[in-house]
């Protein structure tokens, strides 16, 4: 299995943190805040597409409101695969840092 990219990790984390409120706008804002750098919708949705294809997340259509031009919000939730993948990448990251714990990083 391929490792998650940093962006994918951030998106998955954001979806977990936002719980029921995880849709395009909120995910984008949260990730943007986290990395302190601009995140375009194009990038976000490309990454979300990948995650959907790998079945790490599922989407559900929310209610339609007039302020969104008649389009429903799409809410994302993590699947168990997604959670495993995120946990794997967490373990990997930790392993990376532990492997160099005897060196000083400065």
């Amino acid at each position, binding site marked *: 299995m391929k490792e998650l990219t940093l962006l994918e990790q951030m998106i998955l984390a954001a979806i977990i943190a936002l719980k029921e409120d995880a849709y395009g*706008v909120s995910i984008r804002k949260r990730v943007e805040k986290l990395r302190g750098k601009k995140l375009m919708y194009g990038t976000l*949705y490309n990454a979300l597409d990948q995650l959907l294809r790998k079945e790490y997340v599922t989407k559900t259509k929310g209610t339609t409101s007039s302020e969104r031009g008649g389009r429903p919000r*799409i809410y994302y939730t993590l699947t168990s695969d997604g959670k495993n993948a995120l946990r794997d990448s967490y373990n990997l990251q930790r392993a990376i840092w532990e492997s160099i714990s005897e060196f000083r990083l400065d």
Partner: protein
Amino acid sequence: MGQKLLSFLGHYEWKYFVSGDCGEEFKERVQENGRCRALLWYWEQVVYALAAYSKISTAVGGTMLKNYIKITWRNIKNNKIYSFINIMGLAVGMACCILILLWIQDELSFDKFHENYGDIYRTIPELQGTKYSSNPLALAGVFKEQYPEVRQISRFYQMFWLMKHGDKIYEERGALVDDDFLSMFTFPLIQGTPETVFASRDSIVLTERAAGKFFGTQDPIGKSLLVNNSAELIVTGVLKDVPLNSHLQFDFLASMRLMGAREHTSWSYEARTYALLEKDVSLPDFADKISGFVMEHDKRTKQKVVLHIQPLSKVHLYSLNGPDPVIYVYIFSTIAVKRTSPYRTSQTRSLDLSWNMIKEQNRKLFFISSLSLRSICIR
């Protein structure tokens, strides 16, 4: 608009995000940063999304296109002489074509600037099988009286006059015309009105160019010109310069009445005659009617004279006797079209030369593009 653009592309996720997510945040931003900034942000998102979209769907096309450009460039570099011949040939061919097309355009535009272009005709007398553009001086007046179809008529008696103002002496080309001339043809006046410029017999109208020559920056109206050291004429109007694509070329216009009594009595062939006909005139019938006109009125003539009529559209490109110059337009337009084909073949030939190279490159290319496609799809 951005919504439509992206939903047209039909990527299933984006259909939602642009109109939905982007729209929602757009409204927030309008309140925070103002409409202008928000719009800018919105479009930034759309453009970026498009770029991201094209990265996936045209990964193959993009790589291939780049590759083609690269191959072409290498090909040009490797076959410098052939490329030079090809490109020069194409450039010269295109330049020729453009020049020919410009020339054709100019030829076909002759006299078309007249508002009454379609209704102006000139009368053409035929003597012993030869047609002339000069008409009897006295023809115009009688002609208009006899035929109600003629709305306006004007003679154009070409003149070369030596004109003097102060110490400036120039020979100018111009014409004696009737009062109708300026309202028939579209030669706009900068100063003066078409109805009144020839009110006095001793008036003259100059083009801008001629007026500038004699009077510089001074106002020419009311100034006098000594013509042929015999007559003083007063400038009453200034014309815009005559366009080059007019078959009537002149730098001054003076009244026909300067001719004196002769203008109504002389039947010698001296002046061109232009008639503005009513719109609903049946031309063949009218041509039949006028064919015996000169014989009828000119009692002295012993030769048989047939009067014809020629539309303004045929004045420049059709000759009165012999072959019509319009044939050159046809010839050159054929050349212009044919020109493109030899160069097209030479282009293909150069493509043939590089065909093997392209095939070889293509093999590599498919390998590369399949790799890059995989790397995108399976991240």
